């Protein structure tokens, strides 16, 4: 296992851990915006994981998914914001 491989493994592990920790924030909330923010961070985490995985597998085509995610990951937040605004007004 080369240094690079070890790095990737560590990175993967840490990012996965981040995913879990973020999920905890998601679970405890307390408000909906908190959850949405957590969700945003999860998206960012997933982008990171995909990036690491791309290196891991050496296959660049996975990055395309990351692009898509980076573009539309925030649609969720926007939509929820939209929703909360609509019900409040």
């Amino acid at each position, binding site marked *: 296992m080369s240094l690079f491989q070890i790095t990737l493994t560590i990175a993967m592990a840490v990012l996965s851990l981040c995913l879990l920790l973020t999920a905890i924030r998601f679970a405890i909330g307390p408000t909906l915006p908190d959850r949405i923010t957590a969700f945003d961070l999860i998206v960012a985490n997933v982008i990171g994981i995909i990036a690491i995985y791309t290196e891991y597998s050496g296959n660049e*085509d*996975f990055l*395309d*998914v990351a*692009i*898509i995610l980076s*573009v*539309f990951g925030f*649609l969720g937040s*926007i*939509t929820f*914001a*939209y929703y909360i*605004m*609509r019900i409040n007004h």
Partner: protein
Amino acid sequence: MRTLIFATAIRMLTPVFLAFSIYILFRGHNHPGGGFIGGLIGSIAFVFHILGLGTRQTAKSYFSITFYKYDRKPHHGTIRHALRLLRKNLDRRKQKEKPKSIWNYYLLRLRPTYLMAVGLLVAVASGMVGLVLGKPFMTAYWVEGKIPVIGSLGTPLMFDAGVYLLVLGMVLKMVFTISKD
């Protein structure tokens, strides 16, 4: 949701997203992507637009063309009339008219339903090419040579384009319907 920052950002970003979606459409044959993903990306671009600027604004910006016209005056010859129409419609679209202008206009609306139909038609037509040429339905025909980014041109690509249009139309139809309610 009227927020200036979001609306402005989206207004700037939508063309980028659309370009990106077309890029994804055409590279789909060789890389991840294709008509479906491209179509979804394109339609999500419009969803953003709708969320940021409202259905009406989206329909106005992207799904309708204003045609300007005026009733020909006796002293305006046919050619002059035509030229004026042409100039107005091509060149001076954005020029604000004075209150009592001779110009009036009509809107040509591009309905998402038609977009869907066009998409379906394109997809079917790509398959019919083979049928017309005596081969089974959907037999692929390719143009010789390659084009940058896209690669080879052929009926499967046309099919994918049909898928793209249909998906675009479908999501738009849906979102327009839902958000207007």
